[in-house]
C-alpha cells in the first residue's frame, strides 16, 4: 500500500497540515502529525475542485465536509481515482451531450416563446389600456412626430383648416366613423406639407399631408387611406407596437445582461417591429375594405392608390419582402380585385375640390 504525500486544510482554520494519504477499499485515509485524529473520506463523496487530470497539484474536497480541502500532486493517484471515484473527472460524455441538447432545446424554446409570445402578450396588454391613456400618450408626442415628418420635405407643420375644406373633411370622416362602431373618437387633421403620406396615432388621431391629397386622383383614394389609418387605431397597432417595443428591449437587455444587451436589444426591436408592422399593414388594409363596404363607399380607391404609389416609388425586390414593413404595393394593388364595387363616391365634386384646397388661406 502506497502512502501519498499531500497537504490538508480542515475547513475550520486557515492552517495547512502535511499529511499522508492511503487508498483503502472504500475511501481515503488521511493521517498526519497535525491532525488530532485520522480522517476518512469515502470515494463516493469526493468532489474535484480543480481539473485534476490536467493540473498538478490538484485539490479535492469531500461532500460531507464542505470546506475541507486535500491537495495532492502524485499523478499515480489518477488511475485509482478513475476506478473508485470517476465523478472527479467530470460528468460522463453522455450526460454532457444530454446537457448540450437540453441547452439548445431550451434556448430554442425561449426564442420561440419570445418571438410568438411577445406579440400575443402585447396585444393583450394593449387591450387592457384605457382609451384615455392612449389619447394622453399621443398628445405627448403628436406635435413632435408631425414636425419630424414635415421636416422631411422641409415644411413647417401647419394645420390646414379653411372653412370649406374643414367641412368637406368632416363629412368624409363622419361617413366612415358612423359606420365603424369603433369606440374611438377620430380626430383627423390635414398638415400643410408636400409629403405624400398619412399616419395614425393611438387613441384616434390621424394626420394627412397635403401631398397625399394632391397625389390622390379622386375622393375614393382618400377615403381608402383614411379607412386604412382608422383600422390602425381600432386595432391598436400603435399601442401594441409601443408595448411590444418596451417588452422586447426589456427582454433582450435583461436576457443578455452585461453581454452588451443594449445594442442587441435595439436591433432585435427593429427586426420584431418590422415583422409585426407588416402584419399590421395587412390587417389595416382588410379592415379598410370592411369599413368602406359598411359605409357604402367605393372600395376600389385602395387598390388604385397603391397601384399608382408603386409606379411612383418602385418596389422592394421580392426576396426582401419577408422583412419589409409594408406589404408589397403590387400585392396591395390587387386587394380589391374581384370585389363587387357597388358603393358610392365619398364626396361630391364640390366637396372634393374644397378638400384638396383645404390648405389655401
Amino acid at each position: 500500500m502506497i502512502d501519498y504525500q499531500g497537504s490538508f486544510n480542515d475547513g475550520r482554520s486557515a492552517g495547512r497540515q502535511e499529511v499522508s494519504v492511503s487508498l483503502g477499499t472504500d475511501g481515503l485515509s488521511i493521517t498526519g502529525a497535525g491532525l488530532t485524529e485520522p480522517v476518512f473520506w469515502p470515494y463516493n463523496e469526493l468532489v474535484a475542485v480543480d481539473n485534476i487530470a490536467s493540473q498538478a497539484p490538484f485539490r479535492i474536497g469531500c461532500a460531507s465536509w464542505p470546506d475541507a480541502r486535500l491537495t495532492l500532486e502524485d499523478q499515480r493517484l489518477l488511475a485509482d481515482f478513475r476506478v473508485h471515484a470517476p465523478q472527479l473527472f467530470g460528468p460522463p460524455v453522455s450526460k454532457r451531450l444530454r446537457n448540450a441538447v437540453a441547452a439548445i432545446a431550451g434556448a430554442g424554446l425561449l426564442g420561440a416563446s419570445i418571438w410568438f409570445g411577445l406579440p400575443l402578450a402585447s396585444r393583450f396588454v394593449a387591450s387592457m389600456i384605457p382609451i384615455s391613456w392612449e389619447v394622453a400618450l399621443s398628445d405627448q408626442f403628436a406635435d413632435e412626430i408631425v414636425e419630424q415628418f414635415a421636416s422631411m420635405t422641409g415644411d413647417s407643420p401647419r394645420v390646414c383648416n379653411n372653412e370649406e375644406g374643414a367641412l368637406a373633411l368632416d363629412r368624409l370622416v363622419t361617413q366612415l366613423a358612423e359606420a365603424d362602431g369603433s369606440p374611438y373618437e377620430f380626430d383627423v387633421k390635414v398638415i400643410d406639407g408636400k409629403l405624400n403620406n398619412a399616419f395614425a396615432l393611438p387613441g384616434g388621431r390621424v394626420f394627412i399631408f397635403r401631398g397625399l391629397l394632391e397625389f390622390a386622383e379622386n375622393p375614393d383614394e382618400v377615403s381608402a387611406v383614411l379607412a386604412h389609418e382608422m383600422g390602425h387605431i381600432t386595432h391598436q397597432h400603435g399601442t401594441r407596437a409601443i408595448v411590444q417595443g418596451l417588452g422586447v428591449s426589456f427582454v433582450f437587455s435583461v436576457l443578455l445582461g452585461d453581454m452588451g444587451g443594449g445594442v442587441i436589444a435595439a436591433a432585435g426591436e427593429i427586426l420584431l417591429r418590422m415583422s409585426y408592422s407588416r402584419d399590421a399593414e395587412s390587417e389595416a388594409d382588410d379592415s379598410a375594405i370592411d369599413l368602406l363596404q359598411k359605409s357604402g363607399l367605393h372600395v376600389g380607391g385602395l387598390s388604385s392608390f397603391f397601384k399608382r404609389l408603386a409606379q411612383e416609388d418602385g418596389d422592394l425586390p421580392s426576396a426582401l419582402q419577408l422583412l419589409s414593413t409594408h406589404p408589397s404595393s403590387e400585392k396591395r394593388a390587387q386587394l380589391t380585385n374581384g370585389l363587387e364595387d357597388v358603393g358610392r363616391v365619398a364626396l361630391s365634386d364640390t366637396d372634393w375640390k374644397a378638400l384638396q384646397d383645404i390648405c389655401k388661406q
Partner: protein
Amino acid sequence: MPFKDDSIQAPVLSAQDGQGNSVDQSSGQFAVYDGQAGPITKIAAVNAILGLFTLGIYRFWGKTRMRQHLWSRITILGDRLEYTGTPKELLLGFLFAAVIMGLISIGLYVINILIPSVEGQVVVTILYVIGLYFLTFFAIFRARRYRLTRTQWRGVRFSQTGTGRGYAFRAMGLLLLTGITLGLCYPYMQTRLQEYRTNNTWFGNRNLVFDGLAYDLFWKWVLALVLYIPTLGISILWYNVNEFRYFTSRTRFSSLSFSSSLSTMNVFLILLVYGIAVGVLWIALSTAAESVVDFGSLSVTMEAGQAPDISPELVLGIVVMALIFVSLMNVLRFTLYLHPMIRAVSETLMVTGSIDVDDIKQSDAERGSRGEGFADVLDVGAI
C-alpha cells in the same frame, strides 16, 4: 499522463516554515498570478459564442467557468484561491432582479403616461435617475459580497459585512457632496467608500482594516485636474494609480501590511494596447459593414418613429455587426485588459509583517443563495 496546454505547475511561494502556516518576512510578493492569455481567450471565446446561441442564458455558466479559472490562477503562500459560486445561484439572482426591474419599468411607464404636465415628468425622471444610481451602488456592493463569500483560500471563506443599502446611501451622499464642490471632494468620496468596503471585508473571522485619509490624496487630485487638458486626460489615470497605491498602503490584515508599486506607465500601456485593439476592431467591422449596408438613411427614419421604412439589409447588417462586435469586445476585455491588469497588480503587490494563519478561523457569515442579480441586470461591468 498527457497534459493539456493549460496545465500549470504551481509555483512554490517561499513560505517561511515547512508548513506554510506563518508569514514572517520583511517584504515579499503577496500573490502569484500564473494565468495565460491562451486559456483565458479560449474560455472567453467559448462563453461569447455559446452566450449568443443561447440568447445569453449560457453566461451564468460561462461567468462561473471564467471565475473558477481566474481564481485558481492566483496563488498565495503556495495555495490557490478557489471560486465556489454556482451558475444556478447567478441564474436565481438574475431572475429575482429581472422581475423587480420589470415591475419598476412598467410602473414608470404608466406614471409617465398618466402625468401629462412637463414639470411632473421632469420630477419623475429625476427620481428615476436617483433611483437608478441607488440601485447601481446597491448592486455593486451586493455583487462584491457574493463574490467574496464564494472565494476560499485553504478552505476558509471570505465574507462581507455592511449592507447594500448603507453603502448606496453613503455613496449617494458623497456623490452629491462631490457634485456640489465641483469635484474637489472626489478623493474624500473615494476614501470613505473604500473605508466602508475594506473595513467590511473579512477573511475567516478577521477583517481588513483601512485607515486612509482623503487629505493625503487631495493635492494629487487637484494636480490631476489642473493637468487634465495638457495631458489629454492621462493625469486622471496617474491619479487613479496613485489612489490605488495609497489605498493599498493603508490596508492591513491583522499584522500584515501591504504596498503596491504599480506604475502609471504599466497601466497606460495596457490601456493603450486594449484601446488600439478595440479601435481596430471597430474600424474593421464598420468598414466591412458599410461595404454591405448603406447607413446613410438610418438617422432620418429612426427619428420619424411611426413609419420605420428601413431596408431589411440594413437591419440584418446592424444585428450581425452588433453581435460580432459585442462578442469580440467581451473576449478582448478579458484577454487584453483584465488578464494583464491582474498580472500587473499581483506582480507589484507586496506584503510585510508576520501572521500565524493557524489562528484564522472559518467564517460563520451568512452566504445567501442568490447571485449578483442586480449587478448583472444593470451591467455594472465587473468580471
